[in-house]
């Protein structure tokens, strides 16, 4: 049993999410990712189960762990009450903590995610906000989305949202007090440290790749290079 494995096992999500797996495949059978990506939750659990650090590190540095959508469909069906989805969360956490996430294309996307999502939470009090959710990056927002974006205040006013104003209601402006609370919570719970870590390591990786921060963001957000789809062959 290796050190990495031990560290992984200290995660409560892993303790709860991984009792001995019997390889029955009920998780993979319904996994939305397994049908399209080169991904098989059963195999992930199996690798963790080997307790082989070398294999686990390989996993932490790979694209594989980043394919899961955390829908937790696997959790319902496991006859051993395992939760492969939780195992993935623990692996991803460790991959970030150990700085391995920058080694894989999909792992590097954490930069964009951390920047946008944590930025939103700390600036607007919510994970999604019209100020940062742009048609430009979300063409599927559709022609209606584009129309909403073009008439933001009017559309929100029409449907009774409290956009940008104080008091209760959808899209209200979150009071400074609450935002400060969120910032302090981020600071004391390790959220800020996590985000900083992701940003730091990503900056380094960006330098290594000869990209500016913005280029790096665009790169990880938009581009696909490796072969990720599990078409016919594996």
């Amino acid at each position: 049993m290796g050190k990495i494995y031990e560290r992984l096992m200290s995660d409560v999500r892993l303790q709860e999410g991984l009792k001995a797996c019997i390889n029955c495949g009920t998780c993979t059978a319904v996994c939305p990712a397994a049908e399209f990506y080169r991904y098989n939750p059963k195999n992930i659990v199996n690798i963790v189960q080997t307790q082989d650090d070398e294999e686990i590190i390989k996993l932490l540095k790979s694209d594989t762990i980043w394919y899961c959508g955390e829908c937790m469909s696997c959790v319902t069906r496991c006859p051993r009450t395992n939760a492969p989805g939780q195992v993935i969360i623990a692996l991803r956490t460790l991959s970030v903590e150990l700085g391995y996430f920058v080694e894989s294309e999909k792992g590097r996307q954490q930069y964009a995610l951390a920047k946008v999502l944590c930025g939103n939470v700390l600036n607007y009090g919510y994970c999604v906000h019209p100020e940062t959710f742009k048609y430009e990056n979300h063409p599927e927002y559709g022609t209606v989305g584009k129309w909403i974006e073009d008439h933001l205040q009017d559309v929100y006013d029409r449907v009774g949202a409290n956009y940008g104003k104080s008091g209760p209601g959808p899209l209200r402006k979150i009071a400074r007090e609450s935002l400060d609370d969120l910032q302090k919570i981020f600071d004391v719970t390790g959220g800020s440290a996590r985000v900083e870590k992701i940003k730091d390591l990503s900056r380094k990786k960006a330098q290594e790749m000869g990209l500016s921060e913005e280029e790096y963001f665009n790169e990880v957000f938009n581009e696909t290079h490796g072969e990720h789809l599990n078409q016919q062959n594996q």
Partner: protein
Amino acid sequence: MIDFGYGISPSSAINLDKFDRTRFEELAREEPDVLKCMACGSCAASCPTAGHSDMNLRRVILLLGRGREDEVLRMVSHCMLCGKCLIVCPRGINTRHLILSVTKIYQKK
């Protein structure tokens, strides 16, 4: 048509409904041993190409039985017909003839 920068990906799932069993049945007539496999993996474990190519007889038999013939011919093209699998198979499957029959039957389109 708009290019969104992403699209619908093909499914990798084995869909047995779309599996036309004609050729597999022909194979089973030619070499009935194909039905006897219990997927123990002895063949793949002893194969001299293991680690050098993706030939895996257990997988060949399995995929044929699942209608995934496309992968099979490539795998079988690596076979040297050395017969180690024949010796180790606990079910006594005539592996060499099976492989030859696979090439014979699945070759013709």
